[in-house]
């Protein structure tokens, strides 16, 4: 596993830090330095709230290499409230059915482990259902 590659992404993986475009105010995640909305330079960091809703989802029963232990799991496109879509696993579902439009929030979880001798474990964002507010 390429350790420096994962280390470079720590701000995004742990804190959902993307960018905001200084020209058009567009919020960008993952960071890409060139604004997808206006093509201007966009390098200003912006921390996303971590709140969003499920745009689409599917269930994976056979995980790809590195994810065998996690399977079965649900993967989703989550629409963040600031606009961008992000690909991430859903967690803490507790057997409740997933629906498109379901409100979710970001949490930090173990996302993959490497079977090689270094035994590196990668942590990052997943999304869980937002608990109904107490009356």
């Amino acid at each position: 596993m390429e350790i420096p590659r994962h280390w470079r992404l720590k701000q995004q993986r742990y804190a959902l830090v993307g960018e905001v475009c200084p020209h058009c105010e567009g919020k960008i995640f993952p960071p890409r330095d060139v604004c997808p909305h206006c093509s201007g330079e966009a390098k200003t960091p912006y921390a996303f709230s971590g709140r969003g809703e499920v745009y689409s989802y599917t269930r994976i029963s056979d995980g790809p290499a590195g994810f065998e232990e996690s399977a079965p799991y649900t993967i989703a496109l989550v629409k963040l409230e600031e606009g961008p879509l992000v690909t991430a696993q859903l967690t803490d579902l507790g057997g409740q059915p997933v629906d498109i439009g379901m409100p979710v929030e970001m949490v930090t979880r173990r996302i993959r482990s490497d079977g090689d001798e270094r035994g590196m474990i990668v942590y990052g964002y997943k999304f869980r259902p937002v608990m109904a507010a107490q009356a």
Partner: protein
Amino acid sequence: MREVAVIGIGQTKVDEHWDKSLRELAGEAVFAALADAGRESVSAMYVGNMLSGPANKQQHLGAFIADWVGMRYTESMRIESACSSGSAAFRTGLMAVASGAVDSAVVVGVEKMIDSPGDEVTAALATAADADWEVDQGVSFVALNALIMRRYILEYGWKHADFGAFSVNAHTNGKQNPYARFQEGLTVEGYAKAGMIADPINLMDASPMGDGAAAAVMVPLDSLNKNRNGLITVVGSGSATDSLAVHSRTDPLWLTAAEKSVKMAYAQAGIGPEQIDLFEAHDAFTIMAALSLEACGFAERGRAPQLALDGEITPKGRIPIATRGGLKARGHPVGATGMYQIVEVVQQLRGEAHGSQVENAQYGMAQNIGGSGSNIVTHILKRLN
């Protein structure tokens, strides 16, 4: 630019070729195409391939294949753009011949997938997606298409069963193609009962992998002295990219790169979708066939399943697709697929598509999709009268 004719085609069956190596498969298709063209050699070779590094522990396919087919010393290189590597190589050959940089070219798409364990091939295929932001989250290639399909079904009000007509048409046509991986046919019931891979995508929504190679020989039209009646020329070629990651698309339910590449091809050919007699679409998954038909102007946004349900995609319909089985039944040897599409379009235009011939086909189109919509190449071929 010079007009370019395709004067020879060759292909192997898409199959589990346990007895044949990567170079033997490529050689078989190249020799068949050269024989069909009546040539012993050409001035350049372009090889389309995606997976030879991880799957065969072999890169550097340009010299590797050229040497094998007796073309040592000839210019040759490998072109890679994931699942659209085959058509990207074809476009490279086209540009080389059309520009006058080379006098003639053979393009071969080749993939040898089944030697490697399934999970390794799955991981290698996933490198077509974004490693940092998609693959590291545990998404597979099938899952990305499932995410698109579920949203499409919800947004446009379809049922999963409505997509069955795509797979039934592909398998019905595949029965007529001796080079197709599957020749058993498929019923609507068989589609509905197929095992789920990543909901809503089941086994009969997805195309099978396989080993295979397909090739074509290209020369300038003005180098041919004979009667041009019946010759096949390339009249349109377009290529466009989009984000690797599905989540970064402006609209995940629209293939912008398909629309851009097809518009280039239509403009060059001076025609529109009304003139296309058959369309080899990239039906890696039923949802991709639907999105491709919409982006190319054959159906309104969100309406492509209706075309399939109405029988308009069969060889007798308004816009026949997967006429020799498509990715679904002919098989999807990823880096070779784009060249299979070209070979099949040429067969149709020559009137050699026995059993699934589109009557009097004059314009045929092929569209090859790399990744889940990230690199899309479209070609339009024409039979001269």
